[in-house]
């Protein structure tokens, strides 16, 4: 039995039979669309036109032509996505780590708290969106009422003016998704060898030093994972803005995804929407590659 024995009983076709059902779905809805979307983006692909004429790179060049009808709103939407990502990602990387540390110890009720903090994540953006729309309503919402009770004016336009709309969108997203990141961190924390902490304590390391030199290095791959996943999720933000601020004020919180969806399904310019998707995707892939290499380069030889 030298080796693994994995070859036993494998006919050449067997693996492919196991893979086939998945591959049918994968090819139809993942592999083909990646190429087909590119093809669409090179056409004037209006759903209701009988002809879908080839336009080459026009759908792309219009985005990079200042003054064209599409470029200003597209980049404004990209900027909205960037602002949201910039503020939500750090909060969603750091706060959940704090929560995970709070829960990373045996005490009565631990799994209860863990479940409560995770719970909003299962709610879905549609529920969270209308719930916050209600609570953040400038006139009758619970937030402004509570603020007025605390002695503030209580007339903050949470969903209709800046910077409040951003604070609302970031805040509700943190509320909604931080339990998910916390659970990932918690799993990572439990994989860290307890002896490392004991050794650090024997060496007289303070709590902060233990966090800095044991916890964070031990969580490195988990942190990279959390950052990447959160970056992509934030950059894909759609539902919160669609339901809660509805792009207000003056489309300032209309995110890239919102604009692409409007372009494709309200204006029926699927070709141009596909082109925008690729531009956005290139940004996102560059960003996640950046995160990957940034952390890889800093990894000590282990």
């Amino acid at each position, binding site marked *: 039995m030298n080796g*693994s*024995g*994995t070859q*036993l*009983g*494998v006919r050449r076709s067997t*693996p*492919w*039979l*196991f*893979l086939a059902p*998945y*591959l049918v*779905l994968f090819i*139809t809805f*993942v592999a*083909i*669309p*990646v190429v*087909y*979307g590119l093809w669409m983006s090179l056409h004037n692909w209006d759903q209701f036109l009988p002809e879908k004429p080839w336009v080459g790179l026009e759908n792309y060049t219009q985005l990079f032509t200042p003054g064209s009808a599409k470029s200003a709103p597209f980049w404004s939407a990209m900027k909205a996505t960037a602002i949201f990502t910039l503020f939500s990602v750090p909060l969603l990387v750091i706060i959940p780590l704090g929560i995970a540390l*709070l829960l990373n110890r045996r*005490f009565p*009720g631990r*799994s209860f708290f863990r*479940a*409560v903090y*995770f*719970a*909003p994540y*299962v*709610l*879905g*953006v*549609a529920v969270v969106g*209308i*719930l*916050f*729309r*209600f*609570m953040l309503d400038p*006139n*009758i919402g619970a937030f402004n*009422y509570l603020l007025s009770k605390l002695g503030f004016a209580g007339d903050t336009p949470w969903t209709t003016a800046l910077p409040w709309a951003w604070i609302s969108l970031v805040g509700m997203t943190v*509320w909604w998704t931080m339990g998910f990141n916390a659970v990932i961190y918690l*799993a*990572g924390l439990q994989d860290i060898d307890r002896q490392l902490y004991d050794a650090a304590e024997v060496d007289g390391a303070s709590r902060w030093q233990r966090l800095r030199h044991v916890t964070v290095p031990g969580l490195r791959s988990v942190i990279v994972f959390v950052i990447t996943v959160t970056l*992509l999720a934030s950059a*894909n933000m*759609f*539902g919160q803005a*669609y*339901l809660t601020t509805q792009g207000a004020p003056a489309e300032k919180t209309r995110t890239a*995804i919102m604009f692409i*969806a409007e372009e*494709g*399904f309200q204006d029926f310019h*699927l070709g141009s929407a596909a082109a925008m998707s690729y531009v956005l*995707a290139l940004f996102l*892939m560059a960003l996640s590659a950046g995160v990957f290499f940034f952390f890889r380069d800093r990894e000590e030889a282990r």
Partner: protein
Amino acid sequence: MEAATAGRVPGRRAGRRTSRETLRWIALILLTLLYVAPIVWMLLTAFKTEEESALTPPTLLPTEWSREALDTIFSTSSQTPVIRWFFNSMIAALGNGLLVLLTAAPAAYALARMEFRGKRLVFAGIVATLFVPPIIFLAPNYEIVEALGWLDTLPAVIFPLAASAFGVFFLRQFFIGLPKELEEAAILDGASRFQVFTRIVLPLARPALATLFTLTFLTNWNDFLWPLYVLFNPEHLTLSPGLGLLQGANATNYALLMAGGLVASIPVLIVFTFAQRYIIEGVSRSGIKG
């Protein structure tokens, strides 16, 4: 274990430890309030009348537990048939979860345990799509679903979402972690790969399958962008786009909106309550650290 550690601590540090414990509990309880309050607020508002839900200052409890909003929601003649959306969502999420298990599990097993030409390429191809931003698929999949004749039907929200790279990746990690000996013994005894898979591997993988099913169910139930644009007829919607429509039609009837939100939340909260262990423990077992 904790008690033993605490026992070794000299008196002064024990005092600091106690105050830290107090702080921990204050933080835990404040966070709990932060998390529970909005959900309770939704629940309470769903039982208020439209007028009461818009009062300033708001009432905490409904002065009279009203069925107005829920009656509107469950009325079958409604322009916004929430109850129908509920069943549509149920069919879509269950179907999608099942389809993911049926397709991802055998694929993951082949990738975990079999050697064959092209394996690395297939796996790399699948994993690579984990990093492709999903927005890429919006326009082309719309066209593909249309070509299949699935626009405005439930298959549109069942099949495309089932091509889950995550599922394959997740289960492959789990299968790799299983001890090989049982499988090898069964193969020596003359079992086919398929028998090994269905009789040994799948039963052992039950927790991972439950986790994947639950996560898939939740993702599908909550998906918003895709169903918003591939389902149009109010009768054919699922709950997420339905709530969008409900908000569009009744922007300020918050009692009604919260009742809709409640109907959309209860199933997932129930699923979560019972499958909590699978969701949370499952993530730790299978490790994202691939």
